[in-house]
């Protein structure tokens, strides 16, 4: 048990490495990477020691360990913070530091250490990834939601810095996203999710008065949250637990790139490949899934509440949606990016239908094989001299054998090749759970749709994986770069082999009990002892095995049997026609967001600024300032320019903006008539407006101008310019007043 007292050291090692590199070690490249690898290495050793201690502690699941201290005062109480370990944290501790260590070692080769291609910001890279590892390790160890959120955001910062790592890069095509834009996009998109999550957190905090998991998940608190009702405008009355769960899920949607906040992840491929592996496989994106798993009791607090449907549907839909896009991508990393989105959808869907253990299991196995695939693709990219287009590869099997075989291991795991890969066991458990729910609740139920969507996605996954292997490694080289490809250094291939080992074998930790005997499903026993095990379903298992094999086979059939020649188009283009174009353009989501959200925000900013600077506030201020000097012209300006014109302009601009927005939103033939109606009404209104403007407003304005001018002309005569005359008038008036007073 002594091991558990050192828990807080685990994130501290990489953090120390980060501080040391930033403060002094950065001129020395070797020292920098040694520090970074040393830091994560120590975390790995300590992490695994902790993990095995936890495994061999009897009844560990019932007695999580917490270490806390007081952080800051809140009124009459203190906010406590600290670290905690329970089975979920323990298995994450098995996965995260190990995968991170592999990626760190791999980075030494990838960033070109010891060659002439070494990156000029080599040390900075290691500092960033060390900080990133700190964030992830801290996140899994946090014992309260606030601390989790802090590390969550630190990871967001690191992903921003790492995706935009090559920030000078420019492309000849201005429409292609550059690393700096991709980083910004990632940060802002995830931040939208984060703010929603923050709101959920605030809601939870203000209801419970505490954010520690132990406290939130106590029976009384969950019961209280499930019983209490809250009325939301437009939505209706819902249990508090449901609202909080959905809001917190918003954070997971952003971080795990679920629909509709998925757009940042594919573009995040602009970062260096180890970063892609680190962010998109092992750690950051799975943090979203981890969050949902961590908050699982809250999600399960209200049975059959809307939160279940939201989570399950978003997950399942994302799984299918992303896998269809992956089919049409040619960039080796983009395929993996969409595949990641899709696999994360699996996990979210699993958690949504209550398959806690299956979701966590897939989270762990996926991290290993997806990290392997990303690192493998990085190895291919380096081997092919920074060529990323699969259409320009081919025939790399002979030239890069280690990369090939490890990549195949990862790819088979991803597609769920039966029995010998980890992905098969974990994915099958999710499908089996959905199937069981469907059998239980009938066709019109969430589990049915989840099962259906996930099954189709499983086939597509196998298909694009087969396509990827065939295009990259089989056939003949289709470009100059591919012809001169070479195997990568040991610092890159050794991590690949280690990861491949786990990608194949890790599944054996969670084989269903029906196959290996009661009580021997180790993973379920350790992580989810309080949940009922998913019963084995032979038809589902057979179906998913058939789908995986047939998907891979089809992929090979289309792309591998008759390898593409140089410059030959993708056979799918012809087969699918316009559908392929839509898929290739990712259903035009980027364009849609650009036209609505981005344009909208910038337009609003401009509008507000003009309101501030040109139309209303500043002119008002200036008018007041000058008002004393010339009353007549001041009045004229005051009424005419800033207020009326400003208001008219504002109304006009708002009208224009509104109609532009309307045009964009309902630009579809079905509702054209509605648009026309709106247009006609608008025209009629503006005609009426025009009449009022011409006859009433202008008349008033002209009258006020004319009136002031007349009065001014009359008063001009009195103004002699001699102060004494004025004083005389004052005295005379005073005497008059006194006289009136006295004679009253």
């Amino acid at each position: 048990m002594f091991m558990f007292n050192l828990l807080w050291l685990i994130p501290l090692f990489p953090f120390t490495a980060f501080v040391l590199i930033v403060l002094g070690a950065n001129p020395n490249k070797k020292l920098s990477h040694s520090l970074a690898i040393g830091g994560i290495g120590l975390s790995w050793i300590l992490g695994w020691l902790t993990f095995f201690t936890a495994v061999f502690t009897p009844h560990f699941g019932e007695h999580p360990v917490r270490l806390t201290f007081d952080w800051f005062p809140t009124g009459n109480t203190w906010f406590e913070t600290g670290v905690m370990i329970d089975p979920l944290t323990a298995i994450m501790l098995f996965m995260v530091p190990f995968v991170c260590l592999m990626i760190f070692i791999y980075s030494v080769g990838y960033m070109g250490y010891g060659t002439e291609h070494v990156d000029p910001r080599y040390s900075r890279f290691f500092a960033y990834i060390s900080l990133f590892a700190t964030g992830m390790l801290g996140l899994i160890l946090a014992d309260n939601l606030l601390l989790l959120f802090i590390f969550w955001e630190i990871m967001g910062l690191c992903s921003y810095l790492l995706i935009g790592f090559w920030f000078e890069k420019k492309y000849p095509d201005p429409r292609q996203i550059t690393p700096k834009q991709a980083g910004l996009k990632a940060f802002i998109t995830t931040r939208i999710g984060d703010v929603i999550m923050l709101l959920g957190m605030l809601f939870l905090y203000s209801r419970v008065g505490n954010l520690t998991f132990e406290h939130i998940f106590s029976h009384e608190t969950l019961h209280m949250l499930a019983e209490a009702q809250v009325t939301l405008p437009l939505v209706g009355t819902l249990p508090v637990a449901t609202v909080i769960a959905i809001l917190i899920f918003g954070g997971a949607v952003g971080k795990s790139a679920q629909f509709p906040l998925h757009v940042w992840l594919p573009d995040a491929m602009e970062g260096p490949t180890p970063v892609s592996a680190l962010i998109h496989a092992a750690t950051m994106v799975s943090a979203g899934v981890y969050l949902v798993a961590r908050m699982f009791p809250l999600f399960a607090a209200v049975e059959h509440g809307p939160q279940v449907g939201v989570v399950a549907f978003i997950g399942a839909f994302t799984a299918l949606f992303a896998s269809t896009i992956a089919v049409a991508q040619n960039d080796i990393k983009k395929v993996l990016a969409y595949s990641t989105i899709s696999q994360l959808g699996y996990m979210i869907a699993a958690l949504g239908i209550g398959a806690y253990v299956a979701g966590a299991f897939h989270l762990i196995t996926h991290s290993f094989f997806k990290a392997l695939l990303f690192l493998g693709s990085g190895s291919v990219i380096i081997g092919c001299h920074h060529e990323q287009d699969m259409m320009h590869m081919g025939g790399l099997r002979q030239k890069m054998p280690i990369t090939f075989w490890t990549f195949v291991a990862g790819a088979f795991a991803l597609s769920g090749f039966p029995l010998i890969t980890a992905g098969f066991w974990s994915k099958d458990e999710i499908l089996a759970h959905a199937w069981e729910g469907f059998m239980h609740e009938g066709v019109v139920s969430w589990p049915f749709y989840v099962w259906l969507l996930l099954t189709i996605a499983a086939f597509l996954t196998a298909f694009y994986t087969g396509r990827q292997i065939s295009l990259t490694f089989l056939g003949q080289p289709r470009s100059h770069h591919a012809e001169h490809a070479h195997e990568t250094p040991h610092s890159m291939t050794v991590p690949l082999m280690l990861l491949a080992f786990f990608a194949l074998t890790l599944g054996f930790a969670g084989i269903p009990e029906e196959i290996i005997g009661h009580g021997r499903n180790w993973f379920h026993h350790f992580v989810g002892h309080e949940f009922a095990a998913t019963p084995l379903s032979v038809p589902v298992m057979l179906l998913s095995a058939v789908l995986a094999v047939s998907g891979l086979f089809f992929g090979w059939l289309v792309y591998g049997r008759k390898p593409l020649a140089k410059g030959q188009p993708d056979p799918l283009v012809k087969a699918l026609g316009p559908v392929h174009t839509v898929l290739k353009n990712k259903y035009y989501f980027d364009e849609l967001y650009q036209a609505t959200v981005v344009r909208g925000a910038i337009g609003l900013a401009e509008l507000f600024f003009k309101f501030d600077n040109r139309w209303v506030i500043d002119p008002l201020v200036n008018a007041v300032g000058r008002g004393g000097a010339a009353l007549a012209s001041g009045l004229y300006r005051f009424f005419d320019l800033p207020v009326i014109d400003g208001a008219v302009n504002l109304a006009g601009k708002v009208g224009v903006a509104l109609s532009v927005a309307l045009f964009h939103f309902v630009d579809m033939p079905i509702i054209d008539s509605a648009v026309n109606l709106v247009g006609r009404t608008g025209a009629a209104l503006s005609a009426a407006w025009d009449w009022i403007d011409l006859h009433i407003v202008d008349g008033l304005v002209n009258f006020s101008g004319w009136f002031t001018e007349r009065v001014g002309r009359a008063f001009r005569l009195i103004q002699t310019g001699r102060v004494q005359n004025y004083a005389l008038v004052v005295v005379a008036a005073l005497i008059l007043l006194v006289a009136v007073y006295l004679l009253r």
Partner: protein
Amino acid sequence: MVIPLAWYLIVAAALFCIGLYGALARRNAIGILMGIELMLNAVNINLVAFWRYVRPQMLTGQLFAIFVMTVAAAEVAVGLALVIAIYRSRDTVNVEEIDLLRG
């Protein structure tokens, strides 16, 4: 013998009228300034007299008289500075000729 309050008020009123006449009738700017000073001092006499006769235990009257003197001093400083500035630019202190404010 106690001098009645009214005597002080009469003196003050006389002084005020002289000052008012000076301020309104003089052409010379400095003369006007002197007239204004006279009026202020008339007020001071009133203040101090009222204090002495009505509420000798409170300091208010004296205090305000001192305030008035301070303000008067500041006003003279500013006024003279203005007159000098005007004299420099226009070579005259005759207020008839200074009519920049005419509408």
